[in-house]
């Protein structure tokens, strides 16, 4: 067995002061504890002794066998057009935000699992609620142009108003890697 001494400090008020560092590894807990007391007096750790932690490891044991997601993933976000972003806000609902360069405001919020984009038109579909939506962000007064559970009514509306015969639905994932996130602020 080995005993790892690390410093893992998280500042609740200022994340810029977070500090994590590996210090040493020891062959016994007693040696690790002695090390902890020694390092607790050093400038970097003084006043934050509670962040000096001792962790036990079995040699050749593989940690994190399930992998990890924390800190890597956020709820799904997609840049629909230059000025439209769609984001999952919880396990079920998505929100679409319009940023016209002057103002940012939400034009849709609801439970949907699929979306399609055709030019400036956003189509949304929920299999859970059975609803279809057509969103036109450029419409002056009513951006949600249609909301219906009638698939035929929805198809007819798209054909009549936008010349659309069909659309390719994309499933809205639950999570996306943080490094792949478009801007959202």
């Amino acid at each position, binding site marked *: 067995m080995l005993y790892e001494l690390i410093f893992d400090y998280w500042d609740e008020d200022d994340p810029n002061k977070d500090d994590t560092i590996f210090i040493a*590894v020891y062959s016994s807990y007693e040696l690790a504890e002695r090390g902890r007391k020694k*390092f607790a007096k*050093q400038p*970097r750790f003084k006043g934050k002794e509670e962040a000096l932690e001792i962790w036990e490891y079995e040699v050749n044991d*593989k940690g994190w066998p399930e*992998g*990890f*997601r924390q800190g*890597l993933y956020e709820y799904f976000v997609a840049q629909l057009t230059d000025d439209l972003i769609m984001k999952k806000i919880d396990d079920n609902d998505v929100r679409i935000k319009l940023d016209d360069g002057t103002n940012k405001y939400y034009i849709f919020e609801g439970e949907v699992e699929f979306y399609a984009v055709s030019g400036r038109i956003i189509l949304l579909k929920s299999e859970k609620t059975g609803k279809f939506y057509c969103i036109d962000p450029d419409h002056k007064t009513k951006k949600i142009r249609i909301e219906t559970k009638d698939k035929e009514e929805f198809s007819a509306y798209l054909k009549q108003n936008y010349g659309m015969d069909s659309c390719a639905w994309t499933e809205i994932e639950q999570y996306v890697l943080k490094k792949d996130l478009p801007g959202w602020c």
Partner: protein
Amino acid sequence: MYIYRLSHGCEEENNEKTIGYFGSWKKARSVMKEYRSSLPGFKDYPKEFSIKKIRVNEDDYYFYD
């Protein structure tokens, strides 16, 4: 006595995590390859693994501010 510490993440970004301590470089590397190819998180950031040879019970360091 030396040991090989396999970790992932970046210490400067405060997200480094110890995967384990291994008796040989070969074993550490084998685990790294396994994790890099299949486990969520690790396979998404395959370049952030690190294997370091460390002397056990060596702690003659001083940490300034």
